[in-house]
């Protein structure tokens, strides 16, 4: 077996080992990845930035722990931005393990928001985020298409009380809030087909501004909806989250994650190139013979 044939048949254990080494080295190395912001992400940031204090955004956390690495940073960056701007947030979780993700994000964000911080040159005092005043978490209900449709009529049809059992009518921020007409923006952060339901049964029927935060592999599928203006913005994977953090001047989990993702991607590209060099040279030699 010659050198180029060997290039094509490297034992997969070496591939795994190299990936581990690259990821660990990148994690412990001290460097930053420059962020080039895409228009799709900037549209979401600008929209939230333009909202007035007291306006309500709806954040649908439709992912499980399996997509946490990509999507949790998005939720953190976007919701922290909203809370710093004194917006109110309604959460739902229409995937089975979503409630735990919202619960965890809210606990972390409540702690983070207590600290005073400066973003993009603007100083924000630390503040206490209060359940029922600053946010409401509606919780989980099965059959997401039905839930999305019903919420267009009234949140109370399927969520008479919030995740913690408090009746919606006794929650201060929900008193005059009934359906999608009362929100300024809906952001679906999702790792699955729930996004299609938000587009078809939600935005398609009730015509509210919809933005998406998706895993990297899903992103390409949703560009048609961006052009048709069914969605007003799109954050794709960890990169999208890092772009949002960059815009909000709040570097966090995504920017940190990008330091590992970039070298890992470069290694994958290197392997693809090695494999192709071996393949092309071997094919050229076989033709010559």
């Amino acid at each position, binding site marked *: 077996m010659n050198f180029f044939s060997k290039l094509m048949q490297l034992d997969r254990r070496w591939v795994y080992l190299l990936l581990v080494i690259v990821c660990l080295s990148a994690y412990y190395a001290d460097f930053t990845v420059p962020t080039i912001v895409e228009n799709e992400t900037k549209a979401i940031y600008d929209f939230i930035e333009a909202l007035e204090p007291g306006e309500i955004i709806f954040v649908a956390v439709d992912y499980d722990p399996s997509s946490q690495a990509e999507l949790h940073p998005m939720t953190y960056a976007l919701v922290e931005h909203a809370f710093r701007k004194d917006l109110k947030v309604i959460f739902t979780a229409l995937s089975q393990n979503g409630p735990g993700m919202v619960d965890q994000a809210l606990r972390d964000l409540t702690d983070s928001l207590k600290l005073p911080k400066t973003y993009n040159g603007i100083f924000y005092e630390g503040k206490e985020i209060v359940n029922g005043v600053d946010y409401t978490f509606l919780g989980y209900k099965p059959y997401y298409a039905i839930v999305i449709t019903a919420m267009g009529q009234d949140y109370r049809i399927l969520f008479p009380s919030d995740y913690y059992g408090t009746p919606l009518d006794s929650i201060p921020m929900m008193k005059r809030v009934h359906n999608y007409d009362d929100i300024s923006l809906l952001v679906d952060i999702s790792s699955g087909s729930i996004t299609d339901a938000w587009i078809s049964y939600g935005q398609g029927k009730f015509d509210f501004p919809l933005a998406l935060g998706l895993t990297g592999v899903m992103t390409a599928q949703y560009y048609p909806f961006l052009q048709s203006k069914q969605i007003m913005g799109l954050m794709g994977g960890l990169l999208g989250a890092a772009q949002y953090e960059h815009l909000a001047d709040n570097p966090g989990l995504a920017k940190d994650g990008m330091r590992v993702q*970039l070298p890992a991607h470069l290694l994958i590209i290197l392997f693809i190139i090695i494999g192709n060099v071996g393949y092309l040279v071997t094919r050229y030699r076989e033709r010559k013979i």
Partner: protein
Amino acid sequence: MKRQLPLILVFVFGTLMVIQYFVPHENSETVKGFLLDWIVIIGIFALALGLWSLVQVSVAKINSRKENWEYPLVTLASLVMMMFFGFTAITEGASLWSYFLAITVFLIALWMFLQGFMGQAANRNMKLLSGLGLLIVFSLLAIFDSSWEFKFYTAEGLTNQMFVHFFDYIMIPLQATMFALLAFFITSASYRAFRARNLLATLLLIAALIVMLRFTPGPWGEYLAKTSAWVMNVPNLAAQRAIVIGIGLGIVATALKVILGIERGYMGKG
């Protein structure tokens, strides 16, 4: 009639929902609200059936000592424990020992009942009696132990530290680890399979490299970002739109076939 009734129901309610979608009248909304309530009720029954099916399959596997019979045991224990944690609240500052004792007694009692109902005939009564005895012990613990109490569907139950910790420190790491392993398979698979075998494969390879490299530092980063935006917004968008329209038409056709009773797969017989 056994086969005709479901077909009639599907036709009537399917047609009704299609018409309702295009009628923004108050009465139409009331009908929709009523039917949505029914869907939730049916969903809850489906959940109960699913739970019962999981218990049956797991117990049968454990009793027959099939290969990997230990896993269903963990599944059942986790199911009961998470439900127990979610429906109970621990008194602040109380010791957790009596709480753990209660859940252990409850788990053994349930196991005895399951063995009694679903296990082999031998010692069935003995197991049922043991389960009943343990359930009485558990009830006494629940009544007299002040370190914890039942809280059904309340904030206290859902913020119970055991419930939160099991999710944060077991569920999240397990699922995240399983998904993270994918990175290794993707690396290995792309190295082995991503070859420039023909023109289309070469185009795919070049497009993938541009999109993956779009955020690399250096003078070419911005150029690659622009090229990547073009790839996503022009060729990708055109192809995806064709797929979306195709899927949409497929869904409409399938829905019509179901409503008209041509497609009967949901009845379990194809």
